[in-house]
Protein backbone atom coordinates (compact mmCIF):
# COMPACT_ATOMS: atom_id res chain seq x y z
CA UNK A 1 0.00 0.00 0.00
CA UNK A 2 1.34 3.36 -0.97
CA UNK A 3 0.70 6.45 1.13
CA UNK A 4 -2.54 8.42 1.18
CA UNK A 5 -1.13 11.47 -0.56
CA UNK A 6 0.25 9.34 -3.36
CA UNK A 7 -3.19 7.79 -3.81
CA UNK A 8 -4.81 11.21 -3.82
CA UNK A 9 -2.41 12.55 -6.45
CA UNK A 10 -2.88 9.48 -8.63
CA UNK A 11 -6.67 9.66 -8.35
CA UNK A 12 -6.69 13.39 -9.06
CA UNK A 13 -4.53 12.85 -12.15
CA UNK A 14 -6.82 9.93 -13.05
CA UNK A 15 -3.89 7.54 -13.14
CA UNK A 16 -5.79 5.31 -10.76
CA UNK A 17 -9.45 5.03 -9.97
CA UNK A 18 -10.74 5.39 -6.44
CA UNK A 19 -12.85 2.27 -6.99
CA UNK A 20 -9.78 0.20 -7.81
CA UNK A 21 -7.95 1.57 -4.75
CA UNK A 22 -10.94 0.80 -2.53
CA UNK A 23 -11.20 -2.74 -3.91
CA UNK A 24 -7.52 -3.33 -3.24
CA UNK A 25 -7.88 -2.08 0.32
CA UNK A 26 -10.92 -4.28 0.90
CA UNK A 27 -9.01 -7.28 -0.49
CA UNK A 28 -6.01 -6.60 1.73
CA UNK A 29 -8.31 -6.37 4.72
CA UNK A 30 -10.05 -9.62 3.77
CA UNK A 31 -6.72 -11.37 3.48
CA UNK A 32 -5.41 -10.27 6.87
CA UNK A 33 -8.61 -10.01 8.85
CA UNK A 34 -8.61 -13.64 10.03
CA UNK A 35 -5.23 -12.97 11.61
CA UNK A 36 -5.60 -9.37 12.84
CA UNK A 37 -9.31 -8.99 13.54
CA UNK A 38 -9.07 -5.23 13.29
CA UNK A 39 -12.64 -4.57 12.18
CA UNK A 40 -16.03 -4.81 13.87
CA UNK A 41 -17.82 -4.00 10.61
CA UNK A 42 -16.69 -3.72 7.01
CA UNK A 43 -18.53 -1.27 4.77
CA UNK A 44 -17.79 -2.35 1.18
CA UNK A 45 -20.98 -0.79 -0.20
CA UNK A 46 -20.45 2.53 1.49
CA UNK A 47 -16.81 2.45 0.29
CA UNK A 48 -17.54 1.61 -3.33
CA UNK A 49 -20.37 4.10 -3.70
CA UNK A 50 -18.17 6.85 -2.25
CA UNK A 51 -15.26 5.76 -4.50
CA UNK A 52 -17.50 5.94 -7.55
CA UNK A 53 -18.57 9.46 -6.69
CA UNK A 54 -14.93 10.48 -6.16
CA UNK A 55 -14.07 9.09 -9.59
CA UNK A 56 -17.04 10.92 -11.08
CA UNK A 57 -15.83 14.16 -9.58
CA UNK A 58 -12.30 13.78 -10.89
CA UNK A 59 -13.59 12.72 -14.33
CA UNK A 60 -15.71 15.87 -14.36
CA UNK A 61 -12.57 17.87 -13.68
CA UNK A 62 -13.75 18.91 -10.22
CA UNK A 63 -11.53 19.08 -7.17
CA UNK A 64 -12.05 15.66 -5.65
CA UNK A 65 -10.68 16.75 -2.28
CA UNK A 66 -7.58 16.56 -0.15
CA UNK A 67 -8.20 12.88 0.60
CA UNK A 68 -9.64 11.92 -2.79
CA UNK A 69 -9.89 8.15 -2.99
CA UNK A 70 -7.90 7.56 0.20
CA UNK A 71 -9.23 4.47 2.00
CA UNK A 72 -9.82 5.23 5.66
CA UNK A 73 -10.81 3.01 8.56
CA UNK A 74 -12.94 4.55 11.30
CA UNK A 75 -12.85 3.64 14.97
CA UNK A 76 -16.23 2.19 15.82
CA UNK A 77 -17.17 5.04 18.14
CA UNK A 78 -17.77 7.54 15.35
CA UNK A 79 -21.40 7.49 14.30
CA UNK A 80 -21.89 6.51 10.67
CA UNK A 81 -25.43 7.17 9.53
CA UNK A 82 -27.30 3.93 8.97
CA UNK A 83 -24.21 1.79 9.63
CA UNK A 84 -23.73 -0.17 12.83
CA UNK A 85 -21.79 1.74 15.48
CA UNK A 86 -20.99 -0.33 18.57
CA UNK A 87 -18.28 1.51 20.51
CA UNK A 88 -16.87 -1.97 21.14
CA UNK A 89 -19.76 -2.70 23.48
CA UNK A 90 -22.45 -5.32 23.70
CA UNK A 91 -24.80 -2.60 24.89
CA UNK A 92 -24.63 -0.99 21.41
CA UNK A 93 -24.11 -4.13 19.37
CA UNK A 94 -27.01 -3.39 17.00
CA UNK A 95 -27.07 0.40 17.15
CA UNK A 96 -27.45 2.16 13.80
CA UNK A 97 -27.23 5.92 14.33
CA UNK A 98 -29.54 8.18 12.30
CA UNK A 99 -26.68 10.64 11.79
CA UNK A 100 -22.96 10.78 11.06
CA UNK A 101 -20.20 12.27 13.17
CA UNK A 102 -18.83 15.59 11.92
CA UNK A 103 -15.42 13.92 11.50
CA UNK A 104 -16.92 11.30 9.18
CA UNK A 105 -18.81 13.92 7.19
CA UNK A 106 -15.69 16.02 6.75
CA UNK A 107 -13.59 13.03 5.69
CA UNK A 108 -16.15 11.96 3.10
CA UNK A 109 -16.58 15.52 1.87
CA UNK A 110 -12.80 15.58 1.27
CA UNK A 111 -13.07 12.42 -0.86
CA UNK A 112 -11.96 9.84 1.72
CA UNK A 113 -13.40 6.35 1.28
CA UNK A 114 -14.61 4.79 4.54
CA UNK A 115 -13.95 1.03 4.32
CA UNK A 116 -14.96 -0.13 7.78
CA UNK A 117 -15.32 0.38 11.50
CA UNK A 118 -12.41 -0.71 13.63
CA UNK A 119 -12.23 -2.64 16.85
CA UNK A 120 -11.56 -0.89 20.11
CA UNK A 121 -11.62 -1.26 23.86
CA UNK A 122 -15.22 -0.95 25.01
CA UNK A 123 -16.18 2.73 25.20
CA UNK A 124 -12.49 3.52 24.58
CA UNK A 125 -11.54 2.29 28.05
CA UNK A 126 -8.34 0.34 27.79
CA UNK A 127 -4.83 0.24 26.42
CA UNK A 128 -4.75 -3.11 24.67
CA UNK A 129 -7.93 -3.57 22.63
CA UNK A 130 -8.63 -6.61 24.82
CA UNK A 131 -11.62 -4.89 26.40
CA UNK A 132 -13.59 -5.10 23.19
CA UNK A 133 -16.87 -6.90 23.85
CA UNK A 134 -16.36 -8.83 20.60
CA UNK A 135 -12.76 -10.04 20.19
CA UNK A 136 -9.21 -8.80 20.73
CA UNK A 137 -7.30 -7.30 17.81
CA UNK A 138 -3.73 -8.45 17.10
CA UNK A 139 -0.55 -6.54 16.52
CA UNK A 140 0.71 -6.82 12.92
CA UNK A 141 4.28 -6.99 14.22
CA UNK A 142 3.51 -10.02 16.37
CA UNK A 143 0.11 -11.63 16.32
CA UNK A 144 0.61 -12.88 19.87
CA UNK A 145 0.78 -9.30 21.08
CA UNK A 146 -1.74 -6.51 21.58
CA UNK A 147 -1.97 -3.59 19.15
CA UNK A 148 -2.46 -1.15 22.02
CA UNK A 149 -5.66 0.66 22.71
CA UNK A 150 -8.17 1.88 22.76
CA UNK A 151 -7.82 2.69 19.03
CA UNK A 152 -6.23 -0.74 18.52
CA UNK A 153 -8.11 -1.76 15.39
CA UNK A 154 -7.22 1.50 13.67
CA UNK A 155 -3.53 1.18 14.55
CA UNK A 156 -3.39 -2.47 13.57
CA UNK A 157 -4.96 -2.05 10.14
CA UNK A 158 -2.73 0.91 9.28
CA UNK A 159 0.34 -0.87 10.69
CA UNK A 160 -0.47 -3.89 8.54
CA UNK A 161 -0.66 -1.70 5.48
CA UNK A 162 -4.32 -2.47 4.70
CA UNK A 163 -5.23 1.24 4.63
CA UNK A 164 -2.97 4.29 4.72
CA UNK A 165 -5.19 6.17 7.15
CA UNK A 166 -7.50 5.54 10.09
CA UNK A 167 -9.36 7.58 12.66
CA UNK A 168 -8.95 7.08 16.35
CA UNK A 169 -9.75 8.90 19.53
CA UNK A 170 -7.48 9.74 22.40
CA UNK A 171 -8.67 10.40 25.96
CA UNK A 172 -5.54 9.52 27.91
CA UNK A 173 -3.34 8.05 25.18
CA UNK A 174 -5.67 5.96 23.05
CA UNK A 175 -4.20 7.16 19.74
CA UNK A 176 -0.57 7.59 20.76
CA UNK A 177 -0.10 4.27 22.55
CA UNK A 178 -1.47 2.00 19.77
CA UNK A 179 0.39 4.11 17.19
CA UNK A 180 3.57 3.41 19.12
CA UNK A 181 2.76 -0.33 19.30
CA UNK A 182 1.99 -0.67 15.59
CA UNK A 183 4.76 1.52 14.16
CA UNK A 184 2.45 4.19 12.80
CA UNK A 185 2.02 7.91 13.22
CA UNK A 186 -0.76 8.89 15.64
CA UNK A 187 -1.88 12.44 16.37
CA UNK A 188 -3.96 13.69 19.29
CA UNK A 189 -4.86 17.28 18.41
CA UNK A 190 -5.49 20.12 20.85
CA UNK A 191 -8.71 19.65 22.82
CA UNK A 192 -11.30 21.66 20.87
CA UNK A 193 -9.44 21.38 17.56
CA UNK A 194 -11.66 18.64 16.14
CA UNK A 195 -15.41 18.39 16.60
CA UNK A 196 -16.62 15.73 19.00
CA UNK A 197 -20.11 15.72 17.51
CA UNK A 198 -21.10 12.15 16.72
CA UNK A 199 -18.12 10.72 18.57
CA UNK A 200 -19.44 8.52 21.36
CA UNK A 201 -18.27 10.08 24.59
CA UNK A 202 -16.02 8.49 27.16
CA UNK A 203 -14.68 11.51 29.08
CA UNK A 204 -15.99 14.66 27.47
CA UNK A 205 -13.37 17.10 28.72
CA UNK A 206 -10.54 14.88 27.43
CA UNK A 207 -11.80 13.04 24.32
CA UNK A 208 -10.31 14.15 21.04
CA UNK A 209 -10.32 12.60 17.58
CA UNK A 210 -7.21 12.27 15.47
CA UNK A 211 -5.60 10.39 12.60
CA UNK A 212 -3.37 7.32 12.55
CA UNK A 213 -1.34 6.97 9.37
CA UNK A 214 1.71 5.48 7.71
CA UNK A 215 3.50 8.81 7.53
CA UNK A 216 3.44 12.31 8.97
CA UNK A 217 2.30 13.88 5.76
CA UNK A 218 -0.89 11.82 5.64
CA UNK A 219 -1.58 12.69 9.28
CA UNK A 220 -1.09 16.37 8.41
CA UNK A 221 -3.57 16.22 5.51
CA UNK A 222 -6.12 14.27 7.52
CA UNK A 223 -5.88 16.67 10.45
CA UNK A 224 -6.40 19.60 8.11
CA UNK A 225 -9.59 17.94 6.84
CA UNK A 226 -11.14 17.09 10.21
CA UNK A 227 -10.02 20.16 12.20
CA UNK A 228 -11.98 23.37 12.68
CA UNK A 229 -14.99 24.87 14.37
CA UNK A 230 -18.26 22.95 14.32
CA UNK A 231 -21.46 24.72 15.41
CA UNK A 232 -22.70 21.36 16.74
CA UNK A 233 -19.90 21.19 19.34
CA UNK A 234 -19.75 24.06 21.85
CA UNK A 235 -16.24 23.02 22.83
CA UNK A 236 -14.81 23.18 19.33
CA UNK A 237 -12.69 26.27 18.94
CA UNK A 238 -12.82 28.74 16.08
CA UNK A 239 -9.08 29.02 15.38
CA UNK A 240 -7.92 29.02 11.75
CA UNK A 241 -6.64 25.67 10.49
CA UNK A 242 -3.31 25.96 8.69
CA UNK A 243 -2.22 23.98 5.67
CA UNK A 244 -0.23 21.57 7.85
CA UNK A 245 1.57 20.05 4.85
CA UNK A 246 3.28 23.41 4.33
CA UNK A 247 4.81 23.25 7.81
CA UNK A 248 6.63 19.93 7.50
CA UNK A 249 10.33 20.45 8.21
CA UNK A 250 13.40 18.83 6.65
CA UNK A 251 15.90 19.92 9.25
CA UNK A 252 15.53 21.26 12.76
CA UNK A 253 17.99 24.13 12.87
CA UNK A 254 16.78 26.75 15.33
CA UNK A 255 14.14 24.48 16.86
CA UNK A 256 14.32 24.12 20.65
CA UNK A 257 13.25 20.66 21.75
CA UNK A 258 12.48 20.18 25.44
CA UNK A 259 13.36 16.99 27.32
CA UNK A 260 11.40 16.38 30.50
CA UNK A 261 13.30 15.92 33.75
CA UNK A 262 10.37 14.88 35.94
CA UNK A 263 9.18 11.60 34.48
CA UNK A 264 9.75 8.56 36.62
CA UNK A 265 12.41 6.52 34.87
CA UNK A 266 11.45 3.33 36.67
CA UNK A 267 8.16 3.27 34.78
CA UNK A 268 10.03 2.02 31.74
CA UNK A 269 10.15 -1.71 32.31
CA UNK A 270 12.78 -2.50 29.71
CA UNK A 271 16.29 -1.07 29.63
CA UNK A 272 16.08 -1.16 25.85
CA UNK A 273 13.49 1.58 26.08
CA UNK A 274 15.85 4.06 27.75
CA UNK A 275 18.57 3.65 25.18
CA UNK A 276 16.04 3.83 22.33
CA UNK A 277 14.81 7.21 23.52
CA UNK A 278 18.36 8.46 24.11
CA UNK A 279 19.08 7.61 20.48
CA UNK A 280 15.92 9.38 19.39
CA UNK A 281 16.93 12.59 21.20
CA UNK A 282 20.42 12.42 19.66
CA UNK A 283 18.82 12.01 16.23
CA UNK A 284 16.79 15.15 16.81
CA UNK A 285 19.87 17.02 17.94
CA UNK A 286 21.71 15.79 14.86
CA UNK A 287 19.00 17.37 12.71
CA UNK A 288 20.02 20.76 14.09
CA UNK A 289 17.68 21.13 17.04
CA UNK A 290 18.79 22.53 20.37
CA UNK A 291 17.95 20.21 23.25
CA UNK A 292 16.85 21.96 26.45
CA UNK A 293 15.69 20.57 29.76
CA UNK A 294 12.19 21.41 30.97
CA UNK A 295 10.34 20.64 34.18
CA UNK A 296 6.87 19.15 34.52
CA UNK A 297 6.72 18.84 38.31
CA UNK A 298 3.06 17.78 38.43
CA UNK A 299 3.26 15.22 35.65
CA UNK A 300 3.69 12.46 38.22
CA UNK A 301 0.18 13.21 39.49
CA UNK A 302 -1.24 12.64 36.03
CA UNK A 303 -2.54 9.11 36.56
CA UNK A 304 -4.23 9.92 39.86
CA UNK A 305 -5.84 13.02 38.38
CA UNK A 306 -6.92 11.23 35.26
CA UNK A 307 -8.40 8.28 37.10
CA UNK A 308 -10.71 10.62 38.98
CA UNK A 309 -11.76 12.93 36.16
CA UNK A 310 -12.20 10.41 33.35
CA UNK A 311 -14.28 7.86 35.30
CA UNK A 312 -16.41 10.64 36.81
CA UNK A 313 -17.31 11.96 33.38
CA UNK A 314 -17.74 8.44 32.04
CA UNK A 315 -20.15 7.50 34.83
CA UNK A 316 -22.41 10.32 33.70
CA UNK A 317 -21.89 9.87 29.94
CA UNK A 318 -22.73 6.17 30.11
CA UNK A 319 -25.89 6.66 32.19
CA UNK A 320 -27.92 6.96 28.98
CA UNK A 321 -27.42 3.29 28.12
CA UNK A 322 -30.45 1.99 29.95
CA UNK A 323 -32.32 -0.15 27.41
CA UNK A 324 -35.09 2.34 26.72
CA UNK A 325 -34.25 4.29 23.55
CA UNK A 326 -31.60 2.19 21.79
CA UNK A 327 -29.14 -0.60 22.35
CA UNK A 328 -29.39 -3.76 24.40
CA UNK A 329 -32.40 -4.30 26.64
CA UNK A 330 -32.62 -7.05 29.21
CA UNK A 331 -36.15 -7.52 30.50
CA UNK A 332 -37.37 -9.52 33.44
CA UNK A 333 -37.90 -8.16 36.88
CA UNK A 334 -40.81 -6.10 37.92
CA UNK A 335 -40.22 -2.55 36.84
CA UNK A 336 -38.20 -0.09 34.84
CA UNK A 337 -35.31 0.09 37.28
CA UNK A 338 -34.72 -3.63 37.33
CA UNK A 339 -34.69 -3.42 33.52
CA UNK A 340 -32.06 -0.64 33.74
CA UNK A 341 -29.94 -2.66 36.18
CA UNK A 342 -30.11 -5.90 34.22
CA UNK A 343 -29.44 -4.19 30.92
CA UNK A 344 -26.39 -2.40 32.24
CA UNK A 345 -25.12 -5.47 34.10
CA UNK A 346 -25.22 -7.53 30.92
CA UNK A 347 -24.37 -4.81 28.44
CA UNK A 348 -21.18 -3.44 30.01
CA UNK A 349 -17.91 -5.30 30.39
CA UNK A 350 -15.77 -5.43 33.56
CA UNK A 351 -13.55 -2.44 32.78
CA UNK A 352 -16.51 -0.20 32.02
CA UNK A 353 -18.25 -1.29 35.22
CA UNK A 354 -15.11 -0.64 37.24
CA UNK A 355 -14.86 2.89 35.91
CA UNK A 356 -18.56 3.62 36.36
CA UNK A 357 -18.29 2.55 40.00
CA UNK A 358 -15.15 4.61 40.58
CA UNK A 359 -16.55 7.66 38.78
CA UNK A 360 -19.92 7.51 40.50
CA UNK A 361 -18.13 7.34 43.80
CA UNK A 362 -15.86 10.30 43.00
CA UNK A 363 -18.90 12.47 42.35
CA UNK A 364 -20.87 11.48 45.43
CA UNK A 365 -21.74 14.21 47.87
CA UNK A 366 -19.19 14.23 50.61
CA UNK A 367 -16.40 13.01 48.33
CA UNK A 368 -16.82 15.39 45.41
CA UNK A 369 -14.56 18.13 46.77
CA UNK A 370 -11.93 15.74 48.05
CA UNK A 371 -11.68 13.87 44.76
CA UNK A 372 -13.18 15.48 41.69
CA UNK A 373 -12.60 19.14 42.52
CA UNK A 374 -9.11 18.41 43.83
CA UNK A 375 -8.30 16.58 40.60
CA UNK A 376 -9.49 19.59 38.63
CA UNK A 377 -7.16 21.80 40.63
CA UNK A 378 -4.22 19.54 39.91
CA UNK A 379 -5.23 19.80 36.28
CA UNK A 380 -4.77 23.56 36.55
CA UNK A 381 -1.26 23.03 37.94
CA UNK A 382 -0.43 20.60 35.17
CA UNK A 383 -1.53 23.03 32.52
CA UNK A 384 0.62 25.71 34.14
CA UNK A 385 3.61 23.32 34.06
CA UNK A 386 3.30 23.02 30.31
CA UNK A 387 2.85 26.77 29.83
CA UNK A 388 6.08 27.33 31.68
CA UNK A 389 7.89 24.55 29.82
CA UNK A 390 6.91 25.99 26.46
CA UNK A 391 8.39 29.31 27.46
CA UNK A 392 11.80 27.72 26.92
CA UNK A 393 11.13 25.24 24.11
CA UNK A 394 9.08 24.90 20.92
CA UNK A 395 8.28 21.21 21.16
CA UNK A 396 8.67 18.64 23.92
CA UNK A 397 10.03 15.17 23.11
CA UNK A 398 9.43 12.26 25.48
CA UNK A 399 8.48 8.58 25.47
CA UNK A 400 5.07 7.67 24.13
CA UNK A 401 4.95 4.42 26.08
CA UNK A 402 6.81 2.68 28.88
CA UNK A 403 7.22 -0.62 27.04
CA UNK A 404 6.97 -2.26 23.64
CA UNK A 405 3.76 -4.13 22.75
CA UNK A 406 3.04 -6.85 25.30
CA UNK A 407 1.52 -10.28 24.93
CA UNK A 408 -2.22 -10.78 24.89
CA UNK A 409 -3.49 -11.39 28.40
CA UNK A 410 -0.26 -10.24 30.05
CA UNK A 411 -1.86 -7.32 31.87
CA UNK A 412 -5.53 -8.04 31.68
CA UNK A 413 -5.74 -9.36 35.25
CA UNK A 414 -4.17 -6.24 36.66
CA UNK A 415 -6.02 -3.05 35.75
CA UNK A 416 -3.54 -0.84 37.54
CA UNK A 417 -0.61 -2.22 35.51
CA UNK A 418 -2.70 -1.48 32.45
CA UNK A 419 -3.43 2.05 33.64
CA UNK A 420 0.31 2.67 34.00
CA UNK A 421 0.59 2.24 30.23
CA UNK A 422 -0.75 5.79 29.92
CA UNK A 423 1.84 7.33 32.23
CA UNK A 424 3.55 9.38 29.51
CA UNK A 425 0.44 10.36 27.55
CA UNK A 426 -1.97 11.45 30.26
CA UNK A 427 -0.40 14.78 31.30
CA UNK A 428 -0.87 16.18 27.78
CA UNK A 429 -4.47 14.99 27.73
CA UNK A 430 -5.19 16.71 31.02
CA UNK A 431 -3.60 19.91 29.75
CA UNK A 432 -5.55 19.65 26.49
CA UNK A 433 -2.46 20.20 24.37
CA UNK A 434 -1.55 18.41 21.13
CA UNK A 435 0.74 15.41 21.19
CA UNK A 436 1.67 12.68 18.74
CA UNK A 437 3.58 9.47 18.45
CA UNK A 438 6.00 8.87 15.59
CA UNK A 439 7.85 5.58 14.96
CA UNK A 440 11.18 5.69 16.81
CA UNK A 441 12.71 2.25 16.37
CA UNK A 442 12.49 -1.20 17.88
CA UNK A 443 13.09 -2.94 21.18
CA UNK A 444 13.48 -6.69 20.78
CA UNK A 445 12.18 -6.28 17.25
CA UNK A 446 9.00 -4.59 18.41
CA UNK A 447 8.07 -1.01 17.50
CA UNK A 448 8.17 1.90 19.92
CA UNK A 449 7.06 5.48 19.34
CA UNK A 450 8.51 8.85 20.26
CA UNK A 451 6.07 11.40 21.66
CA UNK A 452 6.23 15.00 20.43
CA UNK A 453 4.19 17.67 22.16
CA UNK A 454 3.38 21.29 21.26
CA UNK A 455 1.45 24.16 22.80
CA UNK A 456 -2.31 24.41 22.23
CA UNK A 457 -3.29 24.85 18.56
CA UNK A 458 0.36 24.59 17.46
CA UNK A 459 0.01 21.12 15.92
CA UNK A 460 2.06 22.39 12.96
CA UNK A 461 5.17 22.55 15.15
CA UNK A 462 5.13 18.93 16.32
CA UNK A 463 4.16 17.70 12.84
CA UNK A 464 7.08 19.68 11.42
CA UNK A 465 9.57 18.11 13.83
CA UNK A 466 8.04 14.65 13.40
CA UNK A 467 8.40 14.93 9.64
CA UNK A 468 12.11 15.77 9.80
CA UNK A 469 12.68 12.97 12.30
CA UNK A 470 10.72 10.46 10.22
CA UNK A 471 12.68 11.31 7.07
CA UNK A 472 16.02 11.13 8.81
CA UNK A 473 15.40 7.85 10.64
CA UNK A 474 13.17 5.95 8.20
CA UNK A 475 11.51 3.95 10.98
CA UNK A 476 8.04 4.60 9.63
CA UNK A 477 8.93 3.02 6.30
CA UNK A 478 9.70 -0.35 7.87
CA UNK A 479 6.95 -2.91 7.37
CA UNK A 480 5.75 -5.47 9.84
CA UNK A 481 8.13 -8.41 9.12
CA UNK A 482 5.79 -11.29 9.89
CA UNK A 483 3.14 -10.08 7.53
CA UNK A 484 5.49 -9.30 4.69
CA UNK A 485 7.19 -12.68 5.15
CA UNK A 486 4.03 -14.67 4.54
Amino acid sequence: MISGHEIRDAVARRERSAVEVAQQALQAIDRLEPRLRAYISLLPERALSQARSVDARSRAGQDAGLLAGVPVAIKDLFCTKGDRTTCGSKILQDFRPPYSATVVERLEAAGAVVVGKTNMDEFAMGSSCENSAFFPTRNPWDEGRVPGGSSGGSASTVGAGCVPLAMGTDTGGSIREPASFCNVVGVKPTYGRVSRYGMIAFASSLDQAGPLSRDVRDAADALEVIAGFDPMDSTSVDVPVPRYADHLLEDLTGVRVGLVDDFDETIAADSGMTSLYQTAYRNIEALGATLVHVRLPHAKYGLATYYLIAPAECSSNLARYDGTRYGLRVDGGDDVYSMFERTRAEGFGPEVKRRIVLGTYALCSGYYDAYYVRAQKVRTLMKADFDLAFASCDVIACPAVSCPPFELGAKSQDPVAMYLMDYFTIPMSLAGIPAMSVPAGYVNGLPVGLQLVSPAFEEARMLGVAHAYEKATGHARRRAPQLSAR
Partner: protein
Amino acid sequence: MADVPIDIHYVAKLARLSLTDEESARISAQLSRLFDFIGELQGLDVSGVHPTAQVIPLANVYRDDVVKPSLSNDEALANAPQRDGPYFKAPRILEGEF
Protein backbone atom coordinates in the same frame (compact mmCIF):
# COMPACT_ATOMS: atom_id res chain seq x y z
CA MET B 1 -2.68 -0.78 50.38
CA ALA B 2 -5.18 2.02 50.77
CA ASP B 3 -8.54 1.45 52.35
CA VAL B 4 -11.39 1.50 49.89
CA PRO B 5 -13.79 4.01 51.31
CA ILE B 6 -16.45 2.90 48.83
CA ASP B 7 -19.77 1.44 49.84
CA ILE B 8 -19.88 -0.47 46.60
CA HIS B 9 -23.53 -1.47 46.93
CA TYR B 10 -24.64 2.11 47.43
CA VAL B 11 -22.58 3.31 44.48
CA ALA B 12 -23.78 0.49 42.23
CA LYS B 13 -27.36 1.37 43.13
CA LEU B 14 -26.77 5.01 42.21
CA ALA B 15 -25.24 3.90 38.91
CA ARG B 16 -28.10 1.44 38.25
CA LEU B 17 -25.64 -1.36 37.85
CA SER B 18 -26.44 -4.71 39.38
CA LEU B 19 -23.21 -6.44 40.37
CA THR B 20 -22.79 -10.05 41.38
CA ASP B 21 -21.07 -10.69 44.71
CA GLU B 22 -18.04 -11.89 42.83
CA GLU B 23 -17.96 -8.70 40.73
CA SER B 24 -18.36 -6.51 43.81
CA ALA B 25 -15.50 -8.28 45.55
CA ARG B 26 -13.23 -8.08 42.51
CA ILE B 27 -13.97 -4.42 41.83
CA SER B 28 -13.42 -3.57 45.50
CA ALA B 29 -10.02 -5.24 45.46
CA GLN B 30 -8.99 -3.55 42.24
CA LEU B 31 -10.18 -0.14 43.36
CA SER B 32 -8.23 -0.44 46.56
CA ARG B 33 -5.03 -0.69 44.50
CA LEU B 34 -6.16 2.26 42.45
CA PHE B 35 -6.72 4.30 45.59
CA ASP B 36 -3.04 3.84 46.42
CA PHE B 37 -2.10 6.31 43.77
CA ILE B 38 -5.27 8.35 43.82
CA GLY B 39 -4.34 8.98 47.42
CA GLU B 40 -1.17 10.76 46.24
CA LEU B 41 -3.28 13.78 45.38
CA GLN B 42 -4.35 14.26 48.96
CA GLY B 43 -0.82 15.23 49.92
CA LEU B 44 -0.58 17.98 47.33
CA ASP B 45 -1.19 21.57 48.37
CA VAL B 46 -3.85 22.98 46.05
CA SER B 47 -4.99 25.88 48.19
CA GLY B 48 -5.76 28.94 46.09
CA VAL B 49 -5.73 26.93 42.87
CA HIS B 50 -8.73 27.27 40.57
CA PRO B 51 -10.29 24.04 39.36
CA THR B 52 -10.07 23.49 35.59
CA ALA B 53 -13.34 22.07 34.28
CA GLN B 54 -12.49 22.90 30.67
CA VAL B 55 -9.01 23.45 29.31
CA ILE B 56 -10.20 25.71 26.52
CA PRO B 57 -10.59 29.40 27.31
CA LEU B 58 -14.07 29.71 25.81
CA ALA B 59 -17.26 31.30 27.13
CA ASN B 60 -20.70 32.25 25.81
CA VAL B 61 -21.02 29.79 22.97
CA TYR B 62 -24.63 30.03 21.78
CA ARG B 63 -26.74 28.93 18.90
CA ASP B 64 -29.42 31.09 17.34
CA ASP B 65 -32.98 30.23 18.28
CA VAL B 66 -33.73 28.68 14.92
CA VAL B 67 -35.82 25.58 14.31
CA LYS B 68 -34.10 22.78 12.44
CA PRO B 69 -35.67 19.60 11.08
CA SER B 70 -36.27 16.85 13.61
CA LEU B 71 -36.04 13.12 12.98
CA SER B 72 -39.16 11.43 11.68
CA ASN B 73 -41.04 9.34 14.22
CA ASP B 74 -39.76 6.17 12.54
CA GLU B 75 -36.16 7.38 12.56
CA ALA B 76 -36.51 8.32 16.22
CA LEU B 77 -37.82 4.88 17.10
CA ALA B 78 -35.65 2.89 14.69
CA ASN B 79 -33.30 1.73 17.45
CA ALA B 80 -35.94 1.35 20.17
CA PRO B 81 -35.78 -2.08 21.82
CA GLN B 82 -39.56 -1.81 22.29
CA ARG B 83 -42.10 0.58 20.87
CA ASP B 84 -45.84 0.98 20.98
CA GLY B 85 -47.19 3.05 18.11
CA PRO B 86 -45.36 6.38 18.16
CA TYR B 87 -44.05 5.80 21.72
CA PHE B 88 -41.01 4.24 23.32
CA LYS B 89 -42.17 1.50 25.62
CA ALA B 90 -40.60 0.72 28.99
CA PRO B 91 -41.57 -1.38 31.98
CA ARG B 92 -43.73 0.28 34.60
CA ILE B 93 -42.38 2.78 37.09
CA LEU B 94 -42.97 1.89 40.72
CA GLU B 95 -43.57 4.98 42.79
CA GLY B 96 -41.28 5.79 45.67
CA GLU B 97 -38.31 4.43 43.79
CA PHE B 98 -35.28 6.50 43.13
